[in-house]
């Protein structure tokens, strides 16, 4: 050995950064007025940076501080975070401080992001699923600096993240154990925390933000906006899918279609004698529309990715259902709930904007780079799964037939109305995702659910059991057969579709014994936000924008 190998460059880097930062902090404590200088002292060009942007909780004070840093000094950053939710996240790109991003979801900023990509202002590494991005935090995208949000800190720097723990454990663990710096904004500094969610020795700096961090009420759906078509598709889902397979463990996507299903559990599903037989165990955020089903005794357990604004008290009062700490408040965890949704659930069902003739579906449109968050991960067959359940085995037998080696399959369903608003067809020959991929120079078109994973499509026209199809032609006709009066639907081969119907691959509402007269808003267990508050015994406290009384 002629040269001396240095084995702790990461530790030295951390020491160097902490030394530079020390003059802007008192120990771990940073005054809000000094946060911009501290960030400038800590960050180095080329750093991978996570500005905790979750689905819901946002490190918004630190994001605002980031856009006040000197662009000459704080530059060439590589943003690695699950959600680009705040305008500041994209401002950092416009200010020339961030040159590359890897993320999962950019819903609110999707349009701006697309324009920046087209004008070559930013390079997108990839649009990941949550679990995939968290995975890469521990392989090749470990942040050098993580800016996170917590509800409270104590004097030592222990953090209480409470109900909206979300991504924080994954971000902090990756950063703190690989020579990185963790900076937390908190709403409050207290002597004693309700519980410790993140230990103090993983946290380098704490700053009390002048205003509480922002939380987006992303999972609240007002029942008054649920349509009769959505009631009908919910009836089809319950009878044609949930009852048929006896689905007990599941995840619902966000949207009115799945909210309608939740609100039909105490009424329609109960009338069908399905209580205790379906929908008992969930990977799900605390959807307000699940309250009536919980109160009806339908639901046994719910693990959550995040919390939902206004649901804190209700959730805390139902510790048999949700995951509640000894302190009495919920702990969510996006990484664990995503893993649960992938491996421990038998069904994922959600909505989409476009489905093609193969059964690929996407919410990507031409001028928006939005990503999909967790849907691709939960809406994919878990090839590593090794435990059996009746629903999984039945789906596997249907999809593969009697094979030498028995295996199950995840049920993955998309529920759409054949036309969206403004008569935009939900069924298309080619996904807009292709055009977006071309415009944004992406290697892969952004597909949410791949056709090989999709087992069912539900529309007002009925349900198609794609897993029973034995050829690409059959599959195409099955899709056309539920595509209604869209150009794709009108292009169906009527005889082929009737043949699929005879074989039970397509089932119309009447084939399922559904009385369409029941497809009425009266069937919903709650018809307004106010009904949900009543159902919760006054424990649900909806955000102002959902109150109209």
């Amino acid at each position, binding site marked *: 050995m002629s040269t001396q190998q240095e084995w702790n460059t990461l530790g030295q880097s951390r020491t160097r950064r902490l030394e530079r930062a020390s003059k802007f902090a008192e120990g771990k404590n940073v005054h809000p007025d000094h946060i911009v200088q501290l960030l400038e002292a800590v960050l180095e060009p080329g750093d991978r940076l996570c500005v905790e942007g979750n689905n819901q909780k946002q490190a918004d004070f630190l994001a605002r501080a980031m856009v006040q840093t000197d662009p000459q000094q704080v530059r060439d950053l590589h943003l690695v975070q699950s959600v680009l939710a705040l305008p500041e996240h994209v401002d950092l790109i416009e200010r020339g401080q961030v040159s590359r991003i890897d993320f999962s979801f950019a819903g609110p900023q999707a349009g701006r992001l697309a324009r920046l990509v087209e004008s070559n202002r930013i390079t997108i590494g990839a649009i990941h699923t949550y679990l995939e991005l968290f995975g890469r935090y521990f392989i090749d995208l470990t942040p050098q600096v993580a800016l996170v949000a917590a509800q409270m800190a104590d004097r030592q720097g222990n953090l209480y993240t409470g109900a909206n723990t979300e991504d924080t454990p994954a971000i902090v663990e990756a950063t703190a154990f690989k020579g990185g710096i963790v900076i937390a904004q908190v709403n409050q500094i207290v002597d004693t925390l309700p519980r410790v969610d993140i230990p103090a020795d993983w946290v380098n700096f704490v700053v009390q933000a002048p205003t509480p961090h922002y939380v987006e009420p992303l999972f609240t759906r007002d029942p008054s906006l649920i*349509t009769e*078509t959505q009631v009908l598709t919910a009836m089809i889902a319950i009878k044609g899918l949930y009852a048929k397979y006896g689905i007990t463990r599941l995840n619902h996507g966000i949207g009115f279609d799945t909210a309608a299903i939740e609100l039909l559990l105490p009424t329609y599903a109960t009338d069908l004698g399905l209580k205790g037989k379906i929908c008992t165990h969930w990977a799900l955020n605390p959807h307000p529309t699940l309250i009536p089903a919980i109160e009806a005794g339908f639901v046994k357990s719910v693990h959550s990715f995040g919390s939902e604004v206004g649901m804190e008290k209700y959730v805390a009062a139902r510790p048999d259902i949700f995951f509640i700490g000894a302190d009495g408040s919920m702990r969510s965890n996006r990484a664990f709930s995503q893993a649960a949704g992938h491996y421990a659930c038998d069904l994922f069902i959600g909505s989409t904007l476009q489905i093609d003739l193969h059964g690929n579906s996407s919410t990507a449109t031409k001028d928006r780079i939005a990503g999909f968050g967790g849907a691709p991960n939960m809406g994919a067959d878990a090839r590593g799964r090794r435990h059996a359940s009746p629903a999984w085995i039945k789906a596997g037998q249907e999809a593969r037939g009697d094979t030498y080696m028995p295996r199950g399959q995840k049920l993955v369903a998309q529920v759409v109305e*054949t*036309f969206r608003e403004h*008569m935009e067809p939900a069924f298309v020959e080619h996904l807009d995702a292709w055009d977006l991929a071309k415009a944004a120079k992406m290697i892969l078109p952004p597909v949410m659910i791949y056709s090989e994973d999709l087992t069912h499509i539900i529309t007002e026209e009925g349900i198609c059991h794609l897993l029973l199809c034995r050829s690409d032609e059959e599959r195409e006709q099955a899709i056309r057969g539920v595509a209604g*009066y869209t150009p794709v639907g*009108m292009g169906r081969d009527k005889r082929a579709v009737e043949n699929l119907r005879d074989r039970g691959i397509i089932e119309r509402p009447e084939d399922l014994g559904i*009385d*369409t007269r029941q*497809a009425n808003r009266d069937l919903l267990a709650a018809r307004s936000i106010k009904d949900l508050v009543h159902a919760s015994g006054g424990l649900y406290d909806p955000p102002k924008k959902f109150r109209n009384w």
Partner: protein
Amino acid sequence: MERFEITLPSLHVSALQQSALCGVVSSGNLEVMIEANSTPESCHFEVNTSADGFQDIWRAVLADFSERHKVGGLNISINDAGATPAVVSLRLTQAYEESQEGSDA
């Protein structure tokens, strides 16, 4: 606003229908009214719609409806306030089933 009439072949209604009114006109919704007429082998539709340019889709929806249900001998008037085909089909079926009720006895 667009107004058009279509007459489509359909099997004769199985029993005397009572007039049925189903649905109310409001945003994204529509009104369907069913009455008896004197042409037993066809159904006459009168459509008033707020959305122009979708006659092909209307024809397809109504043709499927006339094929799936025995509606020969009926006049069906539709007042549409921009409903999707899903809502149109659902309302038509609901109105039809409503009109069947009580006529079996």
